[in-house]
C-alpha cells in the first residue's frame, strides 16, 4: 500500500468511528424490560418425559486428557461443585445464607478443588429432582464443554485432528438429543431484559461473582489450549489459573457475564456454533439464577419461567433460523452477530460493529484494539494476534501491537500470535517485569516500523529464520522491508513502538450502556 492509500485508509477509519452514531436512525435504543410471559402451551415433549435417557459421551482417546493439566482439571471440578451447591442451597431453603454460609463453603472447595469431577446430580439432588428437564440441558452441554477441553488438552492429536474431532463432537452433541442448546447467536440484551433479570446479581453479588468467574474460566481456557503444546498449556495456566483464583472469582463489579468470544476470540472464530452454545448455556444459568432470586415470583411461576427460559435457548425453538436473521418484532429471534465474529450475539445497545467492553469503553470488534486497523478475517495469512492480560483478551493486528498493548498493562500477559504456518501459533508469556519467554525454539521477528495502516506487512513473527527469509523474498518489491533484519525474541522484546498513527477511539451512544439509570434505560 502506498502512502496516499495508507492515509486515506486511516482517515476513513477515523471518520467512520466518529460517525458511528451520528445519524439518529442508527442509534441503538436499549431494549425495554419485558413483561412476564408464560411459557408456550406446546413445550417440547422431552421436558415432561420422566425418563433420564442419559447418553454416553462420544468415545475418544482424548477423554479425560484435561487431567494432564491437573490444576485446570481441579478448578473445573470445583466449578461443578460450586454450581451445584448454590442451586441445592436455593431450593432447600438456604437462599438467605447464600452470601455467607454457602459462599464460605463453596469458596473453600474452590480453594481446595477436588481431584475428580463429582456428579452434579449427587451434590444438588433436590434441585435435580425439581428441575429434571433443566438438568438434562445443563448436563449434556457440560459434556460438550468437558470433551472439547479434553480434545484440546490431548497430546496425541495433531492440530488438524483436534479441529476435526471438535466438529464431530459438536455434531454428536447437536444430533443426539432433542435438548441441545441453539448454536445461533442470541440477543443477550433481550435475554437479560426479562422481568426478573438482574435479581440474582443484585441480591447475591458475591455468589453471582463466583458464577461469572466460573464462566470466565470456562471461556478463557479455550484459547489458552488451542494450538498450544502441552507444555505451553501448562505454562499458560500458571497465568490464567492465578488470574482466575485471585481476581476473576471474586469480582463483583462486572457489567455482564463474560462472553466466550471476549475471552477466547480465536476459538470462537473457528467454532462459532460452540461459542454461541456456551454463551447461551451461561445465559441460561443467569436466567435461572434470576428467576430463583426474584422475590416477586411464586413457586409455581418460578417453575413456569424456568420452563420458558429453557425453551428460549433450545435449538428446537430456533429451528430453520440462521445467523444474521432477525425478526424485527421479536428480539428472541434476533440472531445478528458482530461483524467478523459469528460466535457472539448482540450485546446491550451494540451494533454489528460496536460493542461496549468494560474497562475499554466502546470497541469496534473488526479493528485492532491497539491501532484501529481492520483485523484479518482469520489467521491463515500469518496475520493476527491476541493479547491476554488482567483477565481480558484483545484482538490485535500485528506483533508490535500485541507487545506494546501488553506493555501498557501491569502484570503478566500472554500473546498468541499467528505465524507463517497456520498450524503453529507462537505463544509468548511475560513475567511481572515484562520479560517475554517462549517454549518454541528460536522464533524470529520482523519489525520495520511504519504506518500502522499496513503494520501486518512489517511486523510479523515466524517459526524459523528460513520462514523469515522466505517472507522477505516473497515481498522483495516492498521498499519498506528492504534491509530488514531478523530479530531474536530478546531483541524484539526490548523494542517499543510509537503510538499508532491510525488509532481512533470509537464513540458509542452513551458512555456506558450498563450504567444507565434504571428509568432511563428501561
Amino acid at each position, binding site marked *: 500500500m502506498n502512502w496516499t492509500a495508507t492515509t486515506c485508509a486511516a482517515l476513513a477509519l477515523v471518520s467512520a468511528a466518529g460517525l458511528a452514531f451520528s445519524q439518529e436512525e442508527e442509534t441503538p435504543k436499549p431494549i425495554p424490560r419485558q413483561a412476564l410471559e408464560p411459557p408456550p402451551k406446546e413445550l417440547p415433549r422431552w421436558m415432561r418425559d*420422566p*425418563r*433420564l435417557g442419559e447418553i454416553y459421551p462420544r468415545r475418544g482417546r482424548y477423554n479425560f486428557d484435561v487431567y494432564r493439566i491437573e490444576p485446570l482439571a481441579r478448578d473445573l471440578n470445583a466449578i461443578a*461443585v460450586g454450581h451445584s*451447591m448454590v442451586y*441445592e442451597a436455593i431450593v432447600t431453603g438456604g437462599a438467605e445464607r447464600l452470601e455467607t454460609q454457602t459462599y464460605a463453603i463453596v469458596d473453600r472447595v474452590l480453594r481446595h478443588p477436588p481431584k475428580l469431577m463429582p456428579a452434579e446430580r*449427587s451434590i444438588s439432588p433436590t434441585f435435580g429432582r425439581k428441575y429434571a428437564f433443566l438438568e438434562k440441558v445443563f448436563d449434556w452441554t457440560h459434556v460438550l464443554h468437558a470433551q472439547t477441553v479434553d480434545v484440546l488438552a490431548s497430546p496425541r492429536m495433531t492440530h488438524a485432528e483436534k479441529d476435526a474431532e471438535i466438529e464431530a463432537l459438536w455434531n454428536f452433541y447437536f444430533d443426539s438429543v432433542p435438548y441441545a442448546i441453539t448454536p445461533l447467536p442470541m440477543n443477550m440484551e433481550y435475554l437479560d431484559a426479562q422481568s426478573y433479570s438482574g435479581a440474582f446479581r443484585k441480591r447475591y453479588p458475591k455468589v453471582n461473582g463466583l458464577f461469572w468467574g466460573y464462566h470466565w474460566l470456562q471461556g478463557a481456557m479455550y484459547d489458552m489450549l488451542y494450538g498450544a503444546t502441552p507444555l505451553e498449556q501448562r505454562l499458560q495456566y500458571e497465568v490464567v489459573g492465578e488470574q482466575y483464583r485471585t481476581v476473576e472469582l471474586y469480582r463483583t463489579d462486572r457489567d455482564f457475564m463474560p462472553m466466550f468470544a471476549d475471552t477466547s476470540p480465536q476459538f470462537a472464530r473457528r467454532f462459532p456454533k460452540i461459542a454461541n452454545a456456551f454463551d447461551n448455556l451461561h445465559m441460561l444459568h443467569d436466567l435461572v439464577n434470576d428467576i430463583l432470586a426474584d422475590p416477586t415470583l411464586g413457586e409455581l411461576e418460578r417453575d413456569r419461567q424456568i420452563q420458558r427460559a429453557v425453551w428460549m435457548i433450545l435449538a428446537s425453538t430456533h429451528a430453520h433460523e440462521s445467523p444474521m436473521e432477525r425478526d424485527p418484532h421479536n428480539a428472541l429471534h434476533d440472531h445478528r452477530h458482530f461483524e467478523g465474529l459469528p460466535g457472539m450475539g448482540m450485546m446491550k445497545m451494540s451494533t454489528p460493529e460496536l460493542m461496549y467492553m468494560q474497562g475499554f469503553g466502546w470497541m469496534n470488534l473488526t479493528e485492532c484494539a491497539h491501532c484501529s486497523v481492520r483485523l484479518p478475517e482469520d489467521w491463515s495469512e500469518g496475520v493476527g494476534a491476541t493479547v491476554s492480560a488482567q483477565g481480558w483478551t484483545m484482538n490485535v493486528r500485528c506483533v508490535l501491537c500485541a507487545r506494546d498493548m501488553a506493555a501498557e498493562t501491569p502484570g503478566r500477559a500472554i500473546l498468541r500470535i499467528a505465524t507463517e504456518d497456520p498450524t503453529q501459533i507462537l505463544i509468548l508469556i511475560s513475567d511481572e517485569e515484562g520479560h517475554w519467554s517462549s517454549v518454541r525454539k528460536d522464533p524470529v521477528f520482523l519489525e520495520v516500523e511504519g504506518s500502522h495502516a499496513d503494520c501486518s506487512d512489517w511486523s510479523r513473527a515466524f517459526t524459523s529464520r528460513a520462514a523469515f527469509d522466505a517472507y522477505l523474498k516473497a515481498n522483495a518489491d516492498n521498499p519498506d522491508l528492504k534491509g530488514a533484519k531478523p530479530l531474536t525474541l530478546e531483541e524484539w522484546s526490548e523494542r517499543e513502538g510509537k503510538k499508532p498513527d491510525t488509532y481512533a477511539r470509537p464513540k458509542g451512544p452513551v458512555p456506558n450502556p450498563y450504567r444507565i439509570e434504571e428509568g432511563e434505560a428501561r
Partner: protein
Amino acid sequence: MTRSLRIGLAALTLASGPLGLAVDHDNLGAGRPLRFDDAESLSFREMAVEFGVVGEFPRRRTFGLGAALEFQYGVLPDSHLSIGVEPHWGGHGESFEFGAIELGFFHSFRQEIRNHPAVAAKVGLSQPTERGESTLLHLRGIVTKTGRQYDRWHLNLDAEILPDPKPGERRARYGAILGASLPLGYPRSFDTTGLAELAFQQGPLDGQGWTLSAGLGLRRQITPRAVIDFGIQSDLATGRGMDSVPFRFLAGYSTNF
C-alpha cells in the same frame, strides 16, 4: 452343584442378579459391594466392566472364595444388557467351579422427579455350565427415593424362579432388600458413598425359612472412570434348615469406557 449352594454363591458374589450400574461412586449396582441396585441404568452406549471377590466364613462349612466378572452395555436409552460369570472355590469342600453364566437386562422406567421415586426392573437368567443343573430366572423390581436430602433409599423386591425344580426345591422363592446410600465427606470431599442394607431372603428348599442379613459398604471413586468398593455382610438370623454365614467380605473394581 445343588441349588442351595448356587444360590448361596450368587449371594456371595453378584447377589441377586448379574447387573450393575454406571461407574460412579454414587451409582449403585448389585454386588458392588452390597446386594441391592438403585434404579438407574447405564447410559446409552456405555460399556462397563466389573470385577469382584468375596470371601465367606460360614458356620458349618469351610471358607469359601468367589469371584465375579461382568460386562455391561447400555443397549438402549435407560436400558442395559449384561453378561457375567461367577467362579468359586471351597465352601462345601469342593475345588474350583466355573459356576453359571449370568445374562441380564435392566430397564429404568423413570428417574426420580420431585416426590415421585425412580422405578426400574431387571430380569436375569442364570445358565449353569455344569451338567444336571437347571436354569434360574431372577426378577427384581427396584424403587429409589431420596430421604431428607442426600440419603437415598432403595427397595428391591426379588423373585427367583426355577422352571424345573428338583424334588425338595422351591419353584419360586422371594426376597426383599432395603438399601440406603449416603455420599460421605460433603462438603469437603465428593468421591465416596457409604451403603447399608437389610435383606430378607427365603430359603431355596421346601420348608426352609427366611434369612435376615445386614451389610455395610463403601464405594470410592479412584479415577474419572474407576470405582473400588468394599463391603461386609452378616446373617443376623436364619430360619429353619438354613445355613448361617456370620461374616462375609466383598471387594471390587468397576470401570467404564
